[in-house]
């Protein structure tokens, strides 16, 4: 069963992402993490297939958490879903080999994530 971890310090954003993914793919299991540290800790137990990651969070930022998760789980498909849409952030995402999707959390944004997770090229 496909397991997706939603990492975002905003509870509302997590709920919106979860709700939209569950609508698109009712069979997927969703796990939530409220920080980069929480994501790393939970990933060890939950072993997610895919991760959506916010960037601007207290403590460990999204880039650092993404890097660590990709080292721990090299097969992971990860997408950044963030309001930090500066060119420098997009370039860093590209260097990490992860998908970059701009917030707000719209149907189209979440569809792009889901398609990326299923292997379609963005």
């Amino acid at each position, binding site marked *: 069963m496909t397991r997706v971890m939603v990492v975002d310090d905003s*509870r*509302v954003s997590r*709920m919106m992402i979860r*709700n939209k993914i569950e609508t698109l793919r009712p069979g997927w299991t969703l796990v939530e993490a409220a920080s980069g540290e929480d994501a790393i800790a939970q990933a060890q137990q939950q072993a997610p297939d895919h991760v959506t990651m916010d960037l601007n969070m207290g403590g460990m930022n999204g880039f650092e958490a993404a890097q660590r998760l990709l080292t721990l789980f090299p097969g992971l498909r990860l997408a950044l879903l963030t*309001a930090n849409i*500066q060119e420098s952030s997009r370039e860093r995402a590209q260097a990490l080999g992860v998908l970059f999707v701009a*917030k707000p959390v719209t149907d189209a944004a979440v569809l792009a994530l889901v398609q990326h997770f299923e292997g379609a090229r963005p």
Partner: protein
Amino acid sequence: MKLNDIELDALAEVFNLGVGQAAHALSQLAGEPVQLSVPKIALLTADEISAQVVDPRSPRVCAVRQGFSGEIATEAVLMFPEEQSLLLVQIMVGDSVPLDQLSEMEQEALAEIGNILLNSVVASVADTLGIRLEGSLPEVQVGSSQEVLRDDNRPSSEPLLSLQIRFDIDARQIQGYLAFLLDMESGDTLERRIGDFIAGVTRNTT
């Protein structure tokens, strides 16, 4: 710092690009067109700014503040009348959050709306000027416009470079302000960057 006409024009244009991004984000959230004013640029004290944005019908505002730092430091603020905050949250979350949990989550949702809109503008301005800025976490505050614009770390008489943009979602009868405040030092750096931007544009067109 004294911006000449061409610098003021360029600064307004650079912020206009950013405001366009924010308008796009807000209209995606609201599902409705969003009207935005051209940026109003002036050197003002925090009290003078609050006098300009206050609406006598609803003197209390809800504000989301976020600091950005790097080559320049700016305080970015999203403000709207307090009574509209729940409506704005409802528009954003749609049916993702059950109604009985909505008011409990109001502050978090507002922080996220502020985060998206303020980052849209700042990212566009930073990219256009070739600088990189780091944002702090958004904070929600409710009070008079004087209270939300006050900063205990700076004297209230200190002049600030202020860029204000008014936004309206006519279909939802929501309006508010985006404001970007820079102290003199950052204002000077911004002025230099704007000078470089103008020089680049001039080079490309001659």
